[in-house]
């Protein structure tokens, strides 16, 4: 596998903190949805936290990410404010997008989070344009586009690979392969190995276990080094698994199962990225139970605070949308 740097203890603990924050936040959002507290549906990334955490660990504040409809984890890992995330998903004015975007559109441009996207694959061209801006700026910043295995079947993947390679853009493609495109197992809709699609463009690729956060971190160290040293784009295919339903309303719309209970529980039991890292830290005597419990408590406290903040938020007034259509200014 590419990448010969490994995360040190403090970096591992940081990865654990990020993953636990995402996990806690999403478990809370799932519960909130079931309790009828959310105006819309949510797509959760439970079980996939290692991708968000490992990828974003290597990004600076000025680097940009384009994310997906399943983007809460990417948002938090890139430094997005948990309070503003919760308030957004609760549809409150204190939300990062003033309650105008909701779960599928969480974005914080001031932190380089240039948008989750409700259109599968649409982040690819946007990230390509952002990477063009990085290249023109010439300040060493880069853009990461995170997209699903389902999105890989959109034509814009080929188009973006072509331009990124042709122009040697500082763009990292991260395919977060969670095994499913909505209710279709990947094998039923996707031919071949996704990362192979980048190879004919001369883009270096690496397939990584997306549930092993240290491995994701290692591959990211290679990819960011490659890109920041001006060698053009790179492609990572992170293989992971979606534990929850496609979205939290799925049981209302899908009646035939498209995967087995055993498969899900196997991944949950044996491959959980958080449990795996915790186990590794214990095995190596790098953290004891008390330290690990403290990290978990910390994440839970942040989520409690965020949910309370969101619940106490204000509701946008009925005509608030109109004010957000145009900047209305000129240079």
């Amino acid at each position: 596998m590419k990448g010969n740097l490994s995360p040190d203890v403090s970096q591992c603990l940081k990865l654990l903190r990020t993953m636990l924050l995402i996990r806690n936040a999403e478990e809370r959002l799932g519960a909130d949805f079931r309790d009828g507290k959310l105006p819309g549906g949510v797509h959760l990334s439970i079980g996939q936290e290692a991708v968000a955490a490992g990828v974003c660990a290597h990004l600076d504040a000025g680097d940009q990410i384009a994310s997906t409809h399943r983007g809460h984890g990417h948002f938090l890992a890139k430094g997005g404010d948990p309070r503003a995330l919760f308030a957004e998903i609760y549809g409150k004015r204190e939300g990062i997008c003033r309650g105008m975007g909701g779960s599928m559109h969480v974005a914080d441009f001031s932190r380089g989070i240039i948008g989750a996207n409700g259109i599968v694959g649409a982040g690819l061209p946007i990230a390509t344009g952002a990477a063009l801006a990085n290249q023109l700026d010439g300040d060493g910043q880069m853009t990461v586009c995170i997209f699903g295995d389902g999105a890989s079947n959109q034509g814009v993947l080929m188009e973006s690979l072509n331009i990124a390679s042709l122009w040697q853009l500082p763009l990292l493609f991260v395919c977060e392969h969670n095994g499913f495109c909505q209710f279709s197992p990947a094998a039923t809709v996707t031919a071949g190995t996704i990362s192979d699609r980048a190879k004919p463009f001369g883009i270096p690729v690496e397939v990584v276990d997306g549930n092993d956060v240290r491995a994701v971190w290692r591959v990211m160290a290679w990819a960011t080094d490659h890109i920041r040293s001006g060698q053009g784009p790179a492609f990572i295919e992170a293989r992971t698994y979606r534990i929850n339903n496609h979205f939290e309303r799925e049981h209302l719309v899908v009646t035939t199962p498209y995967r087995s209970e055993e498969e899900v529980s196997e991944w949950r039991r044996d491959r959980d990225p958080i449990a795996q890292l915790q186990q590794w830290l214990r095995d190596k005597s790098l953290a004891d139970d008390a330290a690990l419990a403290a990290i978990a408590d910390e994440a839970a406290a942040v989520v409690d605070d965020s949910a309370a903040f969101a619940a106490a938020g204000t509701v946008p007034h009925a005509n608030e949308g109109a004010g957000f259509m145009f900047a209305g200014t000129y240079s």
Partner: protein
Amino acid sequence: MVRIRFIQAINTALREEMQRDDKVILFGEDVEASIFGDTRGLIDTFGSRRVRNTPICENTLTGMAVGAAASGYRVVLHMMFANFIYTGFDGIANQMARMRLMSGGQVQLPLTVIASYGGGRSNAAQHSDTPFAPVMNLGGIHVAVPANPADAKGLLKSAIRCNDPVIFLEPGGRGGELGDVPDEEYLTPLGEAAVVRRGGDVTLIGMGSTMRTTLQAADMLAGDGIECEVVDCRSLAPLDEATLCAAAACTGRVIVVDESRDRCSAASHIAAVLADRAFGDLRAPIKRITVPDCSLPYAPASESHLLPDADKIVAAATTLVRAGEVT
């Protein structure tokens, strides 16, 4: 004043704005060679950093325009033929039109999409459309439609300076047309129509390519003693409703001339606005001269039969005015 061609006006606007602001970049398919001539030569002045030929991949180009604009650049994307807007529609309709609201106003998207629209040159049905309706309906995007070189230059400069997305639709096949353009720097504001001829009998409203036929018709009608108030919309979104209503009130008889297919056209929207806001000033039903709900054929006679022309406008105006005289 200088007398220059339509494409020169566009080219000069681009040149001036690229000189004014380093952040202005231009990309699109063959913008170096430039099929219409409007971007020709810019590569020599501004270099391949800021002027880039792209691969053919419209959906990626429109999305890239959004990404680069969101990251601090002032983007001009040339889409070539307006039909290719359909090919790249996700970046336009789902991204550039939506991102500001979805982000709660965090982001501004200073970007201009240029395309050449309209029929009349046997370019056949996939290179002849007038896609006003789909872009006017998006919200979040301004739509500018110049009818002459002066407005082409002034509107494009405003579009490039605008911190919101603008679709700039140039009438196809009219690049060589000459017009007077002021020597000094000027901007044509977005969202302002122009009254280009005064008259008390009938009001003709046109935009872009239909202004030439509309003005021809006004000349012909003047020969018959019918005086036309003529308005050039110049922008379709925002639409200058006040000027259109005032012009309608001048005569009480309105004909809207639009090269779109009739259903949900710019003309039908304008008619709806006037029916709402100027009903009391109207003396007759509003007429629309548009393209029937048909794709534009290749064969010249079959194509021109469908397009608005001066004779159709004259006939409609004469009927409206004469009907008024009888009652």
